[in-house]
């Protein structure tokens, strides 16, 4: 079963971090991704560029971002393969983002069958 973990947090926090703090945060994410790989659960994952670079398309009109006033922006994702929702939620709780922002867990609709 595939699940998408959506990582939401205040992206301005990142801008405010010192180089050392950035390295520490990146290190925590690398360790997390490695743990997912060792467990055979990792499919894909990446951080997203700042939300100011986003574009939204709706009824043929393209608009510039950012679109949400909310403090927490979608900042990255992991696509994982685990047995069930309970296991996906366990992995979501281990994600560094769960301590600093929040992680949304979405089952991926299996169209191929």
């Amino acid at each position, binding site marked *: 079963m595939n699940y998408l973990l959506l990582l939401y947090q205040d992206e301005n926090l990142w801008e405010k971090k010192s180089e050392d703090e950035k390295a520490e945060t990146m290190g925590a994410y690398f360790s997390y991704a*490695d743990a997912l790989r060792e467990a055979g659960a990792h499919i894909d994952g990446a951080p997203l560029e700042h939300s100011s670079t986003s574009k939204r398309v709706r009824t043929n009109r393209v608009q510039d971002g950012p679109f949400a006033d909310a403090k927490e922006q979608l900042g990255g994702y992991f696509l994982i393969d685990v047995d069930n929702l309970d296991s996906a*939620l366990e992995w979501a709780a281990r994600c560094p983002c769960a301590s600093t922002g929040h992680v949304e867990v979405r089952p991926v609709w299996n169209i191929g069958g």
Partner: protein
Amino acid sequence: MNDARAIAEETARASYGRLLAWLSSRSNDVAAAEDALADAFRAALETWPERGAPNSPEAWLLTAARRKLIDGSRRKNTYKDSIPALTLAAEEAEIAMRDEAPFPDERLKLLFICAHPAIDAGVRTPLMLQTVLGLDAARIASAFLVSPAAMSGRLVRAKRKIKAAAIPFEPPEPQAWGPRIGAVLEAIYAAYGAGWDEIDGSANANANLTGEAIFLARLTANLIPDQGETWGLLSLMLHAEARRDARRKDGAYMPLGEQDLALWNQAMIDEAEAALARAWKCGQVGAYQIEAAIQSAHVAARLKGHDTTVDIVLLYEKLNALAPTAGAAVGYAGALAAAGRFEDGFKVLDAMHPEQTKNYQAWWAVRAHILNKLERKNEAKIAYDRAIGLAEDEATRRFLAAKRAALGKVRS
């Protein structure tokens, strides 16, 4: 006007479990009793602000709730079966109202129902939290990492089963207590564990689960005082809870040996020690008592300066013989390391099954520590990486990252 609302909310907090236990043990139907009680609270919030709160809010709520229950039974034609019991309940409620005497505490019955062998082991703790403590399904779901919809579904099914299978609302006969008490205590311990792991960060809402678990343990110990394990569990949880404030310093993880003793809750430690002494007097050794004794030995080492490392190793050996779990094995390895027996600790970890250890954060953290002490730096670095990747909170991650950094440059 706000006073009446405050009284209703206070009654809900303080008496929910007792009211529900009393109502469900007379209707034999937890779900119906919950609905009736919810209706009664709603009626209280409507009428108390206008007419003032009654002298005995609990008796008022009981009377209102049993009226709802009787109406419900009439509608469902279960009148004949349950009305005699409910009428009796109504009389009792009225006596209680007149005398303002406290009504009998029947939460123990409710605890035993929740831990009945017919109820799925995984839903026992959530069921207790909902019925005895009145927590809502969404909050329980977040503590147990399942979706609120799934948790509500499980709770509803469990309650339907209690009714359909006619699980009796009586504590079992004393000879059948052993395993049933075990299930009650296990469920309380699980609730404490869910709160304990989540000390900071996003999971703050769950910290209070530990308080609720201690409440249940104290209740159980006082209701069944001749069972050593009930006191053992209470002692164990009080010891752990006494150090809550000392576990973090400015958001950083503090290992037990470096915690600020001024932040330990001395009253809680005293109560924990008294509970442990009471447990030994019952004369039946069990896993919770040994775990509490391990805690007690750690505390004595810090408070009185005794060297208890050897005692702790022996206690872990006893624990692993009596109730082997992954947690007890990793604890044993850690205790051996603390006694300077790094090779022995490493062997204990190595003997565990890979399926058990693959994603077990504590196993990787203790392994990293031991490998570090054995000067196997490359392997230690890999183990620290895994422990960091599996950690659930920022403070632990940072603590381990600092240890990893202290390994210095290693070839990888």
